[in-house]
């Protein structure tokens, strides 16, 4: 097979080669923007030039056929320019207003979901799951599909007090910013790894396996040239499994997901926040995880009903207090909600002023 000459360390193509002319011309000189509908916004330059962005949902996992279809649509209406967002939406960049209607008509005809802009639910940031990951305790794509089917109206048209950022991580390794989302699903294991001593001997480096444990539960087992795990200390994070695969952590009977809420990354109004545990465990129930949808529904509905305009989920919870959050959502509070890890004492209530 004849191959072209390879080149090394050239880095990515220059971004300027991929910017539409209207953006090249108004680069760094934008005046303002306006959200025109759930999936359309216009940016206006100091020059008076305009660029319209039409945003559509994407499952992130794309076949080359679909990417070619998107490329063709962009060719037809956008001079061949499009971009992807941090949350894996696709944005068609229109510089000629008369293409705006026909572009949306074609997208709708081809069953694209237009939306995700403004005080709505945008695409869910998520990880690889059973599709391609060794440590997944759930499938991210399936959960995302089930959640977004349920919340489709909040993507396309319906509004919320502010934007709601959802995320799904298929294990506690959390590829992506799951730990600072309005509502996130994080898959967890609940059983101590089962050690295959013969394989540990051949496949694993004992010191790095020990160092991988956040709770110091792993120690050497010199007799077996392996390691042992103190069951009482293990909190099933699975980090040891990534370093040493013969420490089998998967257990379909006991694996499942937790739900965390109230995080954000922006500094608007209040500092960035971590998401906090609201539901400690729900069993995996593919293909549609109805119990997860139901729990997220409870949080979203309570927020939509009760939050003040512009409040994010975390700001709403801080204002009403956690005791009221558990009351209005109807979610049970358990021992698992009380922290016993590294920052535990920072989370204990140190005031007698609270609600009933």
């Amino acid at each position, binding site marked *: 097979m004849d191959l072209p000459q390879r080149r090394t360390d050239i*880095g990515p193509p220059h971004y300027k080669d991929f910017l539409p002319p209207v953006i090249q011309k108004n680069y760094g000189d934008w005046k303002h923007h306006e959200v025109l509908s759930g999936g359309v916004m216009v940016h206006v330059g100091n020059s008076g030039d305009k660029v319209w962005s039409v945003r559509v949902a994407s499952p992130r996992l794309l076949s080359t056929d679909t990417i070619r279809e998107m490329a063709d649509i962009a060719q037809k209406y956008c001079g061949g320019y499009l971009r992807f967002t941090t949350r894996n939406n696709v944005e068609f960049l229109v510089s000629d207003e008369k293409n705006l209607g026909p572009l949306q008509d074609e997208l709708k005809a081809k069953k694209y979901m237009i939306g995700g802009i403004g005080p709505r639910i945008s695409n869910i940031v998520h990880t690889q799951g059973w599709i391609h990951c060794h440590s997944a305790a759930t499938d991210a794509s399936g959960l995302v599909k089930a959640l977004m089917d349920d919340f489709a109206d909040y993507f396309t048209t319906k509004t919320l007090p502010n934007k709601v950022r959802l995320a799904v991580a298929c294990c506690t390794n959390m590829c992506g910013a799951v730990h600072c989302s309005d509502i996130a699903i994080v898959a967890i294991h609940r059983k101590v790894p089962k050690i295959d001593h013969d394989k540990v001997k051949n496949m694993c480096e004992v010191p790095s396996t020990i160092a991988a444990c956040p709770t110091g539960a792993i120690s050497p087992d010199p007799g077996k040239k392996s390691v042992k795990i103190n069951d009482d200390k293990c909190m099933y994070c699975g980090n040891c499994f990534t370093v040493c695969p013969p420490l089998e952590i998967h257990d379909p009977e006991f694996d499942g997901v937790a739900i965390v809420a109230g995080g954000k990354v*922006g500094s608007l109004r209040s500092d960035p926040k971590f998401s906090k545990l609201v539901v400690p465990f729900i069993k995996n129930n593919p293909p549609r995880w109805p119990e997860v949808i139901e729990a997220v529904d409870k949080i979203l509905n309570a927020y939509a009903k009760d939050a003040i305009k512009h409040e994010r989920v975390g700001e709403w919870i801080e204002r009403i207090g956690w005791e009221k959050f558990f009351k209005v959502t109807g979610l049970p509070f358990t021992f698992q909600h009380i922290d016993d890890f590294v920052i535990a004492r920072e989370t204990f209530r140190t005031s007698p002023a609270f609600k009933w």
Partner: protein
Amino acid sequence: MPKKYETPLLDELEKGPFPSFVTEIKKAAAKSSMAGDELGQLEKSYRDRRGYWKHGGIVGVRGYGSGVIGRYSSLPEEFPEVANFHTVRINSPSAFFYTSDSLRQMCDIWDKYGSGLTNMHGSTGDIILLGTTTDKLEPIFAEFSSRGWDLGGSGSALRTPSCCVGPARCEWANIDTLDLTYNLTQEFQDEMHRPAFPYKFKFKVAGCAVDCIASIARADCSIIGTWRGKIAVNQAEVANYAKSGMNIQSEIVDMCPTKCMSYDGKELKIKDEDCSRCMHCIAKMTKALKPTGEKGATILMGSKAPFVIGATLSWVIVPFIKLEPPYDEFKDLVRKMWEFWDEHGKNRERIGELIIRRGMREFLEFIGVDPVPQQVKEPRRDPFFFWKEEDFQK
């Protein structure tokens, strides 16, 4: 012909309004037997409620230690076409802009050598080519690199830097996020392609405190644009917002975290010296309010997911730095950070974990940054602290 599998559970996920990943896998499976076996194995995962992938093993292209991640089915006899199903990471262009032609070019190469499945994009921001075999890696690399594309980072290396849409299409960008991302990526090609760090290192560049790239939550070094001047108020536009139904008192003034604004029904006043530049008012009244004066960025460090010490958000190291090409001051700072990490970091210890372990003082002294109140939420509460001989001379 790719093998056909019965997929009753996954078929359920082709229903409903949101675009279906199952449909995507089926489209690829119509052409690729690898995608076919991916579908078959995934159905089994849905049935058994567990994944069937193994990782590890060193695979890659000549001269590179990163950019390819080895992935293997743990059921190679049942699903032979995905016995090897490696990931190739292609470095994405700044802010994920593409032309139709560039996407078609990528698709042509990938159909020829891989499963036809991609992620646009992976969590770090690479173009993820999902599923190929070891013998195809060199051809894939030759085809891409000869057309101006390169591999992204993986393993204990600099990972592919990424940024928000920035000045390309946003009026709030205080720094050129696209250019800085491109420039850093070019400058540190060796650090990206030949892993020599204790663990991974991520840069994420955001143009303002809205942080659309989630820099503060998932970058060892978060670069977030800010400014040091006043907010210019266009009172006519303020009046237009009021006229169009915005309650300026409750939506803007009352929500200001520093209470530096007031509104008497005619004029919006800002006490600029009390403003913390959180972006709430500007984001809600973009036609009326504009930052002015010196533009630059805050450098924060240390955010990461929970392993090992619990999740962290990046914390302030340098409250304000000018960021203009060729970015030498910032690059020198980065090299000092890496030197500290190289000297003291343990295997698989992120730089943020190291700073916590050794203390902020040691880190700040090493990189030559003075202590300032902007680096902390509050001063320490306990009376246990160290003194150094040089402190007595002050």
